[in-house]
């Protein structure tokens, strides 16, 4: 698979509220980039612009050198909230991603079954979303996103609503699936540890409004990684300390403004 660079250079705003200032960020092919920042700084807004769900007021997002117009077809998007269709079973939720692309139903179902097995959900095909736990729903969403074989992956605090253990587990599931073909990833999170454990590069965003990028840190931890065990390494702590220095200042700004 060939991945060209994802060039993102834009500014976005809603009404008079300037959510994001001028942000320049490029994600190279095969690169896993995590964005961390205080709550409400516009991290998700950035993702929505790349996805083509939101039009920037200034600048533009480019995917594979082409400016984003309408929904970005090459992108897979993992949402923070539940985005599965509650009226479809786990299997149908995954299969429909292929069916809308013109794959015959029988073939789509077979591949969906295969994908559910890959995310560890064999035997849960006939369950409806409300019959699945939070972690299981995320696994279905992951399969639904990946079955289309998107060229780039956008993730908006996907594991945010999960409990700590499930979150760590899902990190591993994600790294496992990702390492197969190493697509370019833009991963938004407020959890610094999660960002370092998963990413090649961590980008710190400033407090909003008019948020911008404050600093970037290359995570030089070796791959393949175990999303849990990597947290015990000394290099991990050094990185965490360095990035937290930048992040803390921004978080404090947010709190200062609120109080």
């Amino acid at each position: 698979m060939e991945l060209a660079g994802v060039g993102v250079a834009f500014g976005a705003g809603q009404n008079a509220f300037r959510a994001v200032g001028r942000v320049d960020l490029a994600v190279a092919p095969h690169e896993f980039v995590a964005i961390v920042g205080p709550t409400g700084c516009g991290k998700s807004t950035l993702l929505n612009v790349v996805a083509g769900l939101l039009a920037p007021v200034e600048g533009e997002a480019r995917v594979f050198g082409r400016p984003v117009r309408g929904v970005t077809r090459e992108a897979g998007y993992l949402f923070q909230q539940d985005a599965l269709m509650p009226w479809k079973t786990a299997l149908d939720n995954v299969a429909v991603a292929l069916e809308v692309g013109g794959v015959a139903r029988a073939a789509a179902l077979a591949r969906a079954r295969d994908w559910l097995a890959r995310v560890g959900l064999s035997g849960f095909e006939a369950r409806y979303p409300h019959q699945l736990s939070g972690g299981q729903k995320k696994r279905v969403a992951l399969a639904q996103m990946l079955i289309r074989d998107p060229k780039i992956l956008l993730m908006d605090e996907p594991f945010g609503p999960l409990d700590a253990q499930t979150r760590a587990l899902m990190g591993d599931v994600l790294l496992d699936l990702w390492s197969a073909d190493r697509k370019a990833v833009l991963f938004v999170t407020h959890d610094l540890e999660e960002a370092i454990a998963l990413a090649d590069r961590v980008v710190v965003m400033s407090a909003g409004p008019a948020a911008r990028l404050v600093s970037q840190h290359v995570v030089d931890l070796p791959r393949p990684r175990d999303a849990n065990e990597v947290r015990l390494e000394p290099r991990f702590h050094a990185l965490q300390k360095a990035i937290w220095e930048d992040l803390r200042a921004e978080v404090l700004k947010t709190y200062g403004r609120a109080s």
Partner: protein
Amino acid sequence: MSRGALLGWRLAVAAILIALWHIAANTTLFGDPKTVRFFFSTPGDVAARVWNFFATGSIWKHLWITLQETVLAFVIGSAAGILIGFAFAMAPRVAAVFDPYLKMANALPRVVLAPIFMLWFGLGVWSKVALGFTLVFFIVFFNVYQGVKETSPVILANARMLGMNGWQLFRHVYWPSAMSWMFSSLHSSVGFALVGAVVGEYLGAAAGLGYLIHEAEGVFDVTGVFAGMFVLAVFVILIDQIVTFAENRLLVWRPEAAQRQ
């Protein structure tokens, strides 16, 4: 309370009420039994009349007519409600223009329309269908409209990211979302279709359960009125059971529906 005990208590309530009714109609305990019989008939007479309805088979014609009217009012009213509901949800400007008129039409007590419908559609089935339609339409319309408007923006965004085009969004997202709202009001819309049919028959018809009751009333045949009401009540319960069954089958994906099973 166990199922058996519950059933026992329920039967006891019915037995006591019927016993009181019987005593009042046959003894002087609650006054002159002749007066009581004139106003309330007797349980024995009502039971005999109901038995007679089915033994002679005279009731089937009326049941069939009422069922026909109910089903037609429900189907046509729902179809129109779904169509207009979707149209208005997709075209907010049109919805804004028509909003006061819809509110006005919905505010009108539908019974006053019955004479007009008789005039337009005659005394047959269609004037009752029209009355039921005006009741069903608004329930379905408001629910579908709401269902389309309240479609989760996250599910919608996700569906678009999965590459769905306009028609696919309709089929996989908007339609099921609207249907779930519509089905949640299935009991009231079917119930109102029946109300339209019976009230229409009551006000002028040549057949149907409402007609049967009205006829009996016209000649002070209280036994006939009570027997007709009894058949009507059982008929409504049967229809409601069918709706519950359909609902559980169609909304298995809903947490509440699954729990009820």
